């Protein structure tokens, strides 16, 4: 069963001109967000992106940008209360 979370929120951005088509983003993405078509990467299912940041950090051409971070509610509340970056020990 494929899970679907909120639509149109992922901060994933892809700059096609920089892409060399190396395929590393396809290799690292845990949700199959990218595909290689005609020697270029392409975002095919943006709403499945969980903003883990794997594609961006592993893209040698710096063609991907995404705001990655801690995603649990307790961490975000903690971040609000302390004014720090959200981080948690729940995992």
């Amino acid at each position, binding site marked *: *069963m494929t*899970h*679907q*979370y*909120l*639509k149109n*929120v*992922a*901060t994933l951005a892809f700059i096609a001109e920089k892409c060399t088509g190396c395929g*590393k983003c*396809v*290799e*690292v*993405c*845990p*949700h*199959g967000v990218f595909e290689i078509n005609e020697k270029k990467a392409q975002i095919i299912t943006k709403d*499945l*992106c*969980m*903003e*883990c*940041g*794997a594609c961006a*950090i*592993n893209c*040698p051409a710096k063609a991907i940008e995404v*705001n*990655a*971070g*801690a*995603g*649990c*509610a*307790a*961490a*975000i*509340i903690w971040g609000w209360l302390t004014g720090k970056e*959200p*981080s*948690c020990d*729940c*995992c």
Partner: protein
Amino acid sequence: MSQNSCCCTSSACCGTPAIQTVSTQLTLKDKLGGWKVRWGLARMDYTMEPGIYAAGEPNETSPVLVSANYKLTFDTLRKHLTGLHCWLLILDTKGVNVWCAAGKGTFGTDELVHRIQETGLADVVAHKKLILPQLGAPGVSAHEVTKRTGFSVTYGPVRADDIQAFISSGYKATKQMRTVRFTMWDRLVLTPMELVIAAKTSLMLFGVLFLINLFAARPFGLFDFVVYAAAVLTGAFVTPVLLPYIPGKAFALKGWLLGMIGTGLIAWAYGWFAPPSLLLGIGYMLSLPPCSAYLAMNFTGASTYTSPSGVLKEMKIALPLIVLSLVAGIILLLIKTFVG
């Protein structure tokens, strides 16, 4: 180059650092330990020494698999290596699993580079190829590692049970091996932790209720405990397990829906929707489903598909509603408690 301060008796000693051999069979003790970790009883000290380990009888051409020094992760990996000969390079992730450690950056480029150098990996194997768990990718920059150490990084499958197929196919992962799942079983094993945390918070609440009971016209009793416990179970257990089958996308909404049903049914069975107890019924309908909603929302942290931006959006809407409803419900309950 390699630091061989050891005085091992093995013939493989000279020039290489001490390497332990690991078994691919789990003992009862390993399994028991894993169970305790799931229930939050032994989390912190469940680590192991970082470094190089041998599974089977690897030689200088054998593959190198990289993993975290969380013993549960290590156990899951090694039990799927039966019949393989390979090296395991264990990073120091402070006893945190690969996915979470990658998010925190401890399963990261710097630690990997450091560990390669410290263990003298280049003297152990003749090739320059590392296999990392795919879930470690958010922390590691493959091209950066290559630039700094000469080792190339290939990401293996998400699940350890695909590792044999991955290696025998010449390091090719299918799309299915690359995709994380979040099965009912995956979700089920995560719930004990949620329950333990919820139970700890509940103890504080029970302390407060005990004090209130000293002055109450209608003290809290077993029925109140049942309806409360049901709401906690709904948020921390039932909602996570049934997740994809509950309508809605936001976790808080899912938890709130089930919380309304559960609390409603119990309150109705206790006759709290009839005049003398009506305040109680409404008070619980207002205060408990938000608790389920909050607990369910917290499960986003354990899920494998929620984006931080999505969670933030969900919280900005859900949290004010949760607090409002909770406060209104508590006021009604207190009126009932003190006025009777």
